[in-house]
């Protein structure tokens, strides 16, 4: 993993960074790389309201806002941006609107690397809308100016279509920090945290999946 000028992470929901990316973000922060996390919604249409439920549809907004702020603190971010769109609705914003939001951030921050979802392979319509906006914004840039793209893909056909991920970030040494980051998203992560802490085969599989390497795909925009 090389030192970057600036890393820009763009996801739609307050826990999208936690599972697959927070170890990588923490490593960049520790290398002294400026990392900005732009989170487009508050995830306030989520179905998980705690285990047992401690939130409502109406209180989830404030709860998840606090959770992502705590996650950002644990990662060590000093630039967390909460853009405040309504969960589930990103794909219905006016065509080009989100691309413009992304373009403005690129113009301001001049990132050398952007981490987001992989279009077509990220399952949730908000993930897809985010990925498409990033790709569209980067595509408009002159090829020499474009930041590298490091994308998260997890739909069921990912391996069949894209093959093995070509970027793998070793997060050994970051297990405790990552577990705390995931625990910060308490309303969403209860069952997974229990699984991670257990000593069953399922628990070991979960630790292998989340706590060893974070994997991504690069993306050739042309």
């Amino acid at each position, binding site marked *: 993993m090389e030192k970057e000028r600036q890393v820009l992470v763009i996801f739609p929901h307050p826990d999208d960074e936690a599972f697959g990316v927070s170890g990588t973000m923490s490593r960049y922060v520790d290398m002294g790389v400026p990392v900005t996390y732009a989170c487009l919604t508050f995830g306030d249409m989520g179905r*998980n309201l705690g285990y047992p439920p401690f939130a409502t*549809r109406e209180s989830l907004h404030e709860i998840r806002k606090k959770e992502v702020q705590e996650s950002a603190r644990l990662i060590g971010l000093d630039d967390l941006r909460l853009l405040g769109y309504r969960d589930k609705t990103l794909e219905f914003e006016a065509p080009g609107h989100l691309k413009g939001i992304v373009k403005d951030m690129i113009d301001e921050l001049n990132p050398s690397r952007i981490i987001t979802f992989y279009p077509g392979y990220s399952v949730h319509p908000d993930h897809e809308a985010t990925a498409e906006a990033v790709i569209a914004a980067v595509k408009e840039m002159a090829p020499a100016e474009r930041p590298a793209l490091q994308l998260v893909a997890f739909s069921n056909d990912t391996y069949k279509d894209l093959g093995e991920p070509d970027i793998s970030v070793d997060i050994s040494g970051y297990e405790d920090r990552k577990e705390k980051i995931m625990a910060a998203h308490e309303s969403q992560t209860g069952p997974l945290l229990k699984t991670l802490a257990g000593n069953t085969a399922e628990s070991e599989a979960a630790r292998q999946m989340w706590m060893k390497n974070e994997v991504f795909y690069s993306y050739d925009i042309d």
Partner: protein
Amino acid sequence: MEKINRDKVQQLLDSYQNKKVFVHVEVTGGMYASHFDDKVFNAGMFLRNVQVTFVQGGIRGGENGEYRVGLKLDNDGWIYVLGLTHYEVNDDNEFIMHGFNYDGKLASALEISTQEFLK
């Protein structure tokens, strides 16, 4: 939230009768339903900050703690939600009914307030 008390919920429904109210109505199986199981057909909906006036509101059912609520509107239209299990009135005076499925995830919601819900 508390498990639904039928009498209390009926009283709350009555208290909003014949007033202009905002509703949030939602039924959801989750965005990942067909990702985790390709035999699941993924359907869901929400309406938010729709203003209505209902002339009659009732709670029915209750088998296994699962209730139905129906609101008859002043234009003879209807709002109907199945599978509600919990309720509360929060600090913002919003009357919230939620239905949690067997995994503890939100499956349905009906919320009523005289003020607009957060945008």
